[in-house]
């Protein structure tokens, strides 16, 4: 088990290192003067252009030799500094992100966990009932093939814009001041609901299909046939198949984290939900590159943490990783 985690952690540290390097390198690797490219998107007076150009050059440390810039980047990062946001000037990037992260987590965590659990359950049931299989499966394929942003648009249109059942945009009603009142909590909940449903539904389809197909494979495994030859009832065979099918599903969960985060980004944008994804749009629109770079690192760290959690769960579910004979089955 120790080797298993050592390997995982090594991968994660490497990933973090690569991510930071990319984060630092991409603006510098882009063809041409990155700052000129950046500023060309504004309509600027020549005088203010010069000021901005020099201040950006300073902020990016572009005057220094590359290795120096790189080390400084790490040093600032390790001190928790990601620069100052332009979009929310003069707040530091970390503060801006921290405010948004709460909303994103409130959306992502329940949507991911619940869709995973529900999808697995329903997929398992579908694997044993023909009728359910014929109905759930096509539905799941439709869901998993749906672009997040489109489902979000559709829900926003039908349930918010036309039916007025839910608010169409924002994290809470702007007429309310954030307090711990029922009215405010209710407002939070109603604004949270549609983005949550979007993320939940798309995820649900994928998990249901995955579980259903895996169980069908497992039911054809040798151990399943052996159980049958011992006259074990179908219930027991299915139980084993389900438990074993959870392992590749967990691997799948770790693999999909990136996609799920991407889905959250576009969903938040549709609903103007003030999380990380929405912040991405604001940063893009206001050419706030420190913010974008910060968000990138934040997402990476978040995904790494989530990966680690999945690893821990995997060890809890797969006894073989614990006895140390089979490291890195994933």
């Amino acid at each position: 088990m120790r080797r298993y985690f050592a390997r995982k952690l090594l991968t994660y540290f490497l990933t973090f290192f690569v991510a930071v390097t990319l984060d630092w390198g991409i603006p510098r690797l882009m063809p041409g003067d990155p700052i000129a490219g950046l500023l060309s998107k504004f309509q600027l007076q020549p005088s203010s252009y010069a000021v901005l150009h020099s201040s950006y050059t300073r902020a990016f440390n572009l005057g220094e030799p590359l290795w120096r810039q790189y080390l400084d980047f790490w040093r600032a990062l390790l001190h928790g500094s990601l620069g100052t946001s332009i979009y929310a000037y003069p707040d530091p990037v970390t503060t801006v992100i921290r405010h948004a992260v709460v909303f994103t987590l409130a959306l992502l965590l329940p949507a991911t966990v619940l869709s995973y659990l529900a999808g697995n359950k329903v997929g398992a049931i579908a694997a044993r009932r023909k009728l359910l299989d014929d109905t759930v499966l096509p539905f799941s394929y439709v869901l998993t093939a749906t672009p997040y942003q489109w489902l979000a648009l559709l829900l926003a249109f039908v349930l918010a814009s036309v039916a007025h059942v839910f608010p169409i945009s924002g994290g809470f009603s702007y007429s309310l001041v954030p307090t711990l009142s029922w009215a405010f909590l209710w407002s939070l909940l109603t604004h949270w609901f549609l983005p949550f449903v979007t993320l939940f539904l798309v995820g649900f389809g994928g998990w249901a299909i995955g579980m259903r197909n895996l169980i069908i494979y497992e039911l054809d495994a040798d151990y399943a046939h052996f159980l049958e030859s011992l006259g074990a009832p179908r219930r027991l065979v299915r139980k084993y198949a389900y438990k074993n099918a959870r392992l590749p599903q967990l691997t799948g969960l770790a693999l999909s984290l990136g996609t799920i985060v991407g889905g959250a980004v576009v969903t938040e944008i549709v609903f103007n939900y003030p999380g990380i994804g929405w912040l991405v749009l604001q940063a893009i629109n206001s050419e706030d590159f420190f913010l974008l770079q910060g968000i990138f690192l934040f997402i990476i760290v978040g995904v790494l943490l989530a990966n680690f959690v999945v690893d821990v769960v995997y060890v809890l579910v797969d006894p073989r990783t614990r006895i140390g004979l089979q490291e890195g089955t994933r």
Partner: protein
Amino acid sequence: MSLDVQNLVVAYRTLRGDVRAVDDVSFSVADGEIMGLAGESGCGKSTLGNSLVRLDRTMRCLGGRALLDGTELPLSDWDAMDDFRFKKVSLVPQYSMSALNPTRRIGKMISEVVRSRKIRYKDVLPELERRLRLVGLPTDVLAKYPIELSGGMKQRVVMVLTTLLDPSLLVADEVTSALDVSTQRAVGGMLVELRDMGIVTSTIVITHDLSVLVQVADSVVVMYAGKLVERAPTATVVDAPRHPYTKLLIASLPEVGVRYAEHVLAGIPGHPPSLLDPPKGCRFADRCPLASAECAVEPPLVELESGHFVACWKAS
């Protein structure tokens, strides 16, 4: 009379029609007898043995019956067969190495299987532990996962489990082929011991490895292309086979350590016929050195002398 198989036909379905992997086969196995079932791969021996315990869902039993201690086994009725499986008929599968659920401790798995058959685990645990020791396994294998055991150990666990409830019939399907030679002998010895101790009443040992049969079997049934071609006591099959196929099979084996019929038999010209559309007469006629006109009619299985049956016009 322990097992009596009469005119059994088992087919698997394909697009181009039913493939009769076992075609009108009859034989019986006495109490306390270990019967070997031999033949090239694809001759239907495995299908025959497995169908007595677990008829694969892609297979159909198209005719005949099997009586165990006078009761007919409901071969095609999956649920009714469950009453017999494990308790009356049991199967040591070809895939013993992967037969145990990889994510369950062995003891836990056995307890769940036993309990699912409405038997209290506590009641069988002492016997289970006794038998594990009997086959030379420490009882703490029950606390282990399959991956912690060697191939031979897994094989023994599977054998102990399948025979735990003292079945009347044990079908052992190629139980030795995945093992090294010394382990093979040990497993063969176990089959004999299980019979000698009265744990298993009758045994069918399916193998392409005749040396195993020489070691353990009292009698041998030779199959070719879905048909039973010869049945006799082991010594007779080895020393005085009467069917040309059996003769070639035996003759093509090296003198010492009679092994791996399959590989050597590739030396006999020709291939077994397609079971989808088998030839009318004797199915071996194509490859048979003695074949003549009369072989266009299917030869009946005749008892040449007591206990020695042959299906060949040239044998009498």
